[in-house]
């Protein structure tokens, strides 16, 4: 309150100022005057009665005594004073009404956006999983794998391993690496677990066994449950993961497992010295048994510098200040020095080494060995695919909401007239968008789960299990905000720009201008360009895959089943030939042959040379081992000469046409009788030439091939089932399995139909094709949502016009044409723009195939017709509905 006006004598005592201040602060304004007046009057009275000092005390007591709810409580105003909360509630209410009023558009928007968001979410799950690989290692940015690259026979290839002696050289002579860890994979057919009281337990083909040293555990994230890494410095020690420990010793605690014994290779008896946690799902370090390297008694000889095996890998951890490139140079210099001693003969062979960062381990297929690698290109491709689909959904939102702006013009104009700022209107609109996006996000989560159950096999194993909540939450938030701003900015700006006067007078067409229409049109065109490209992609990929799977490969493959005999049996070829005769006796088996299947995903090659009149011709040939029945079995025709004769070792060659051409023979028969010399090997005559057949997938050209007979190399049993009786195949295969057991009691009869195996060549392409099919379906769906919504809005906005037209004699057909025409024009423009883009993309994709279909114009025409039909179907529904409307009704509604 105001200071006191001068009253009475100037030296009149005044109440304590502080108490007065306090009073003024807490008392409700409407009570303050009278209350303070009473207090002051009382004070003046008390000064006269008990003196100033005590009056002041009393004053304080009185003031404090007034601290009561009714005194403090402010009088509620006669007019409401809206708080932020009230306004937000109001906005929310308006928004919900708006969304409900235009529920069809809302539904289309939410559905479209949720599909787009779900696509993004699935790709996010996949990408976050793949990129998380090997990131949980301590100091993972300083860890490198030493890998090898070599050029052999003109082909450059990578190998994740290094020569064994390199480990010691790195340790002794490579500054910069503060840790070097051998990770030598051990493979075996069988191992024996000595279970207490239960005797010996055999384990078949155990996986994940590595010989290593204690330092391994400072490289990875596994932690010790019991025991310590130091145990690995002693020979005959093994450390198991928890999983492996329970597998080998069920029902035993980690403590009890310590000291148990395992026998490797029937002779190496080792003791369990520790148990570690299982490797996480997102690591390529998938070891489960860690054998101390010293148990292996490796005494690397200098000659081993010449050998590189994928199973002998070395990891190094560099010093914090070491330069990887410098370390690499030094490493190569060292390797050169040692390799030079054993490669004096001038063999055309070069090898060098690289440091592969841990972050590349999961992505570089060149050094994949057995571990699964992910392709960064594929991931980026999927990301852009998801981005495109989300963009389609966002375009829908923009288009539909912009089309709704005229309907909302009155509300916006009133808000503006009442003083709402542009900024506030935009924010309001963005919040509305955020609400829709959030709703779509919720549905997207449900859709994602559906996808995981329905298409889980398209995703790498472990994707569904991998979670990273902080990253996921921030991604979801960022995604929602980005979509909200992309979708909401333009309509928001449009709203902010709206002239209130025009809005209130309903002169909207003028108010919004024609730029909106052009933008909407270009957005639709853009949408259909994407859909059209996808459609062409789907068609072409399907064509090519059908071609690759259905095209004759130069040999018969119907009803062929392949089974591999165990490789440890390679010396005992007699057993295989007895097996062959035994199987031949089964009634359901039409033919049988031993030898490498004609087309395989592995290959085996060497260089042969021919000394002709014009000089020496050297050709790298694919080598396939066959028996005498092979050509007949696969129906590969001989063009000249004869089949191979039975033989234990190589005595003669049969080559294919491509090989004959490569050696320079004009006619197949010219090659017969000519002598070929194998690189560093013997010379034998060509006895026959066969017609070309595909020895690899259609990605590769037919390569020059040599067929030869060596009994010991015939490892695959090719079985042709009686072609006319598919019903008995299963029975025959069971009989074959029984026979197999007589020969290999410990080996399962693992067979595969050759057709299925050939289809595996195109696994990548099939996965790509499935992804593109899905993307096509989704993009068409979303684009149609948008078209449908727009068609509906436009036909309602043009209700009157249609009514007038009908009265003036327009037919239903002409009105449908009128309404559909605009959209069709846009789709046609999109088809014209999309075709070259799709052509270029598919042309690139087909470059991966040596044998491919031609891209023909009818594919684009078909795709165009498809898009047009879909458009017509979508638009017509609304157009016909509008055209059939009774003009009396549409014109009366005023």
């Amino acid at each position, binding site marked *: 309150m105001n200071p006191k006006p001068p009253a009475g004598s100037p030296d009149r005592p005044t109440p304590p100022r502080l108490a007065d201040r306090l009073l003024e602060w807490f008392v409700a304004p409407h009570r303050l*005057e*009278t209350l*303070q*007046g*009473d207090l*002051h009057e009382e004070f003046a009275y008390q000064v006269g009665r008990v003196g100033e000092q005590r009056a002041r005390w009393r004053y304080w007591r*009185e003031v404090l005594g007034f601290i*009561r709810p009714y005194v403090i409580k402010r009088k509620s105003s006669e007019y409401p004073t809206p708080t932020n909360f009230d306004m937000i509630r109001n906005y929310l209410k308006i928004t919900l009404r708006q969304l409900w009023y235009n529920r069809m558009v809302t539904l289309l928007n939410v559905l479209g956006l949720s599909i787009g968001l779900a696509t993004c979410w699935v790709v996010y799950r996949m990408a976050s999983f793949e990129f998380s690989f090997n990131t949980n290692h301590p100091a993972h940015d300083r860890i490198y794998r030493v890998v090898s690259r070599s050029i052999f026979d003109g082909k450059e290839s990578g190998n994740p391993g290094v020569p064994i002696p390199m480990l010691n050289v790195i340790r002794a002579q490579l500054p910069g690496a503060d840790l070097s860890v051998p990770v030598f994979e051990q493979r075996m057919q069988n191992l024996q677990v000595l279970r207490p009281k239960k005797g010996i337990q055999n384990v078949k083909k155990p996986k994940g066994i590595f010989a290593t040293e204690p330092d391994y555990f400072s490289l990875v994230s596994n932690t010790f449950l019991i025991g310590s890494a130091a145990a690995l410095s002693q020979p005959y020690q093994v450390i198991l993961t928890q999983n492996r420990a329970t597998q080998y010793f069920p029902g035993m605690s980690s403590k009890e497992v310590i000291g148990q014994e395992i026998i490797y290779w029937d002779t190496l008896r080792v003791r369990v010295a520790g148990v570690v946690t299982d490797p996480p799902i997102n690591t390529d370090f998938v070891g489960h048994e860690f054998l101390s390297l010293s148990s292996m008694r490796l005494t690397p000889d200098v000659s081993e510098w010449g050998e590189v095996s994928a199973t002998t890998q070395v990891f190094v951890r560099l010093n914090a200040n070491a330069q990887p490139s410098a370390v690499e140079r030094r490493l190569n210099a060292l390797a050169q020095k040692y390799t030079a001693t054993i490669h004096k003969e001038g063999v055309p062979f070069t090898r060098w080494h690289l440091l592969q960062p841990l972050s590349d381990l999961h992505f570089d297929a060149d050094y994949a060995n057995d571990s699964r690698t992910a392709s960064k290109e594929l991931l980026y491709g999927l990301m852009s695919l998801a981005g495109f689909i989300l963009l389609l959904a966002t375009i829908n939102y923009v288009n539909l909401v912009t089309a709704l702006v005229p309907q909302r013009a009155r509300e916006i104009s009133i808000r503006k007239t009442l003083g709402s700022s542009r900024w506030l209107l935009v924010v309001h609109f963005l919040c509305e968008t955020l609400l829709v996006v959030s709703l779509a996000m919720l549905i997207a989560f449900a859709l994602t789960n559906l996808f995981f159950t329905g298409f889980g096999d398209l995703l790498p194993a472990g994707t569904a299990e991998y979670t990273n909540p902080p990253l996921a939450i921030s991604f979801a938030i960022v995604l929602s905000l980005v979509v909200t701003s992309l979708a909401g900015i333009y309509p928001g700006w449009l709203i902010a720009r709206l002239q209130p006067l025009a809005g209130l007078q309903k002169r909207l067409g003028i108010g919004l201008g024609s730029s909106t229409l052009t933008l909407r049109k270009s957005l639709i065109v853009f949408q259909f360009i994407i859909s059209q490209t996808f459609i062409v992609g789907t068609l072409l990929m399907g064509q090519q895959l059908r071609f690759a799977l259905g095209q004759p490969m130069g040999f018969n493959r119907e009803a062929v089943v392949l089974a591999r005999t165990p490789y440890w049996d390679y010396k005992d070829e007699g057993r295989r030939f007895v097996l062959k005769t035994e199987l031949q006796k089964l009634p359901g088996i039409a033919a049988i042959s031993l030898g490498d299947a004609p087309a395989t995903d592995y290959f085996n090659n060497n260089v042969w040379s021919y000394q002709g009149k014009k000089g020496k011709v050297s050709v790298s040939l694919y080598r396939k081992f066959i028996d005498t029945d092979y050509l007949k079995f696969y129906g590969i025709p001989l063009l000249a000469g004869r089949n191979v004769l039975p033989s234990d070792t190589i005595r003669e060659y049969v080559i294919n046409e491509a090989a004959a051409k490569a050696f320079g023979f004009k006619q197949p028969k010219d090659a017969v009788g000519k002598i070929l010399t194998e690189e560093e090997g013997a010379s034998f005559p060509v006895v026959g030439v066969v017609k070309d057949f595909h020895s690899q997938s259609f990605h590769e050209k037919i390569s020059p091939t040599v067929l030869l007979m060596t009994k010991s190399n015939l490892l695959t049993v090719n079985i042709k089932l009686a072609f006319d009786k598919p019903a008995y195949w299963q029975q025959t295969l069971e009989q074959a399995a029984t026979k197999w057991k007589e020969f290999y009691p410990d080996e399962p009869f693992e067979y595969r139909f050759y057709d299925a195996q050939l289809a595996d060549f195109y696994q990548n392409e099939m996965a790509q094709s499935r992804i593109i099919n899905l993307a096509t379906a989704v993009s068409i769906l979303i684009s149609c949502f948008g078209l449908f919504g727009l068609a509906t809005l436009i036909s309602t906005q043009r209700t009157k016009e249609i009514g007038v037209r009908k009265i003036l004699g327009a037919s239903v057909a002409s009105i449908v044409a009128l309404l559909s025409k605009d959209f069709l024009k846009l789709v046609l423009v999109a088809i014209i723009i999309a075709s070259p883009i799709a052509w270029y993309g598919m042309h690139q994709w087909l470059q991966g195939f040596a044998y491919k279909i031609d891209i023909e114009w009818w594919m684009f025409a078909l795709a165009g017709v498809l898009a047009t039909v879909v458009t017509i179907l979508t638009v017509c529904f609304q157009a016909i509905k509008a055209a059939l409307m009774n003009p009396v009704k549409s014109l009366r509604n005023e």
Partner: protein
Amino acid sequence: MKRTYLGEFEEIVLLMVAGMDGEAYGVGITHKLNEETDRSVRLNQVHAALHRLQEKGMVASRLGDPTPERGGRRKLLFTVTAYGYRTLQEIKAVRAQLWSTVPITPKLATSL
């Protein structure tokens, strides 16, 4: 019929308001109470009672004139309402009724 409850202190304050005939206000009532009932009543207690009475509709308030010792602030003057007056009368009647049943020389408890 719902009877409004009046506390003893409220009743006295209401009586004071009625007795001061439209000129009752916080300080006035306090002083008069202190003089006449030999109690030591404080201003905030009186204010609270007046607030409750007003809530119950037994007094009405209006603004009075400012005085110098109040620093030029106006008084909040209270007048008893018809409802308040009737309540007072009812209480008085009940008391009188009860008094009429008390014998002239009632038996008094002898021990403490």
